[in-house]
């Protein structure tokens, strides 16, 4: 092998050895680190905010139905609407829809841990 060929092979080995690892922090053009798909457009953000306002208005309206419908139904409706709002903000405004799944996994882990822990505590203290 000639000197030139050896140098070329060495250069190639070096480029492979220093290559960015899979999942490295070099996002596609226009994306932030950790993003998989582009963030929503401002128009989509406004649409989500409108949906959040409408759900909030329904929540407040349902709270005024106390006495007209069973309390259990009011609590169920309010919790469902709160979960919908929570999910919309987390998925669209916090970009869990478009970012790498590792962020979603950590956040869901925190939520599930909190809900399970305090459900056990409150149940053992006969709150439910």
């Amino acid at each position, binding site marked *: 092998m000639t000197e030139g060929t050896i140098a070329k092979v060495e250069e190639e080995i070096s480029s492979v050895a220093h290559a960015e*690892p899979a999942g490295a922090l070099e996002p596609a053009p226009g994306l*932030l680190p950790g993003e998989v798909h582009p963030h929503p457009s401002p128009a989509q953000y406004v649409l989500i905010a409108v949906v959040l306002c409408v759900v909030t208005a329904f*929540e407040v309206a349902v*709270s005024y139905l106390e006495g007209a419908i069973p309390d259990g139904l009011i609590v169920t409706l309010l919790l469902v609407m709160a979960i919908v709002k929570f999910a919309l*903000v987390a998925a669209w405004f916090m970009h869990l829809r478009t970012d790498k799944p590792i962020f979603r996994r950590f956040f869901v882990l*925190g939520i599930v841990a909190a809900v399970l822990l305090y459900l056990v505590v409150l149940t053992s203290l006969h709150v439910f």
Partner: protein
Amino acid sequence: MATTIEQTTEVGGPPAPTSPGAHGGHPPTSTGVGSTKLAIWLFLASDCLFFGAFISAYLLYRGRSTVPPGPKDVFDIPFTSATSFILLMSSLTMVLALAAIQRGDERRLKIWLLATVLLGATFIGGQVFEFTEFDREGLGLGTNLFGSSFYVLTGFHGAHVTAGIIWLLSLWGMASQGRLKQADAEKVEIAGLYWHFVDVVWIVIFTVIYLVPQPGLAK
């Protein structure tokens, strides 16, 4: 013998150390995502447990107060609905600030950051007004179980919002001095994640504390 660090390039092996990336100078990590962003998500996950403790304490003491005033005596649902709406809208202005810096539009970035700060400050102003009114009606921190659990939970949330306002004001100050450029979009995104988190916590507090039908005093 000199110690050497092996660079593994085999499939499945640890990633080889490389030069910092183009975005914010992050070195590659074993998770493939930036440490700052991962850290804020871990903080938010741990904050779920923090707020979960206070929400649970409120639920535990709910309906167990033996002396007035109770929630039905002091809550002003239309007023709190208005402040909740304001906080919800601050999440919209926050994402619009992020969209602006991602486009490199520094003028709109400053406008939306300032709008978020003002909306957050209005929410805090509403909370201070609400606490003052409750105090006038005889509900102090040590009046009864409802007062203790309510003030501690909503007070800690208010402290989180206040910290967020200070954070956003510092970003606005940087932007005003021209020190927040398109390449710094991740800084705005991370502040935004914190801001949206205090919003989602309020979504839960507003429903569980204010809107769910309230029991009367314990006998």
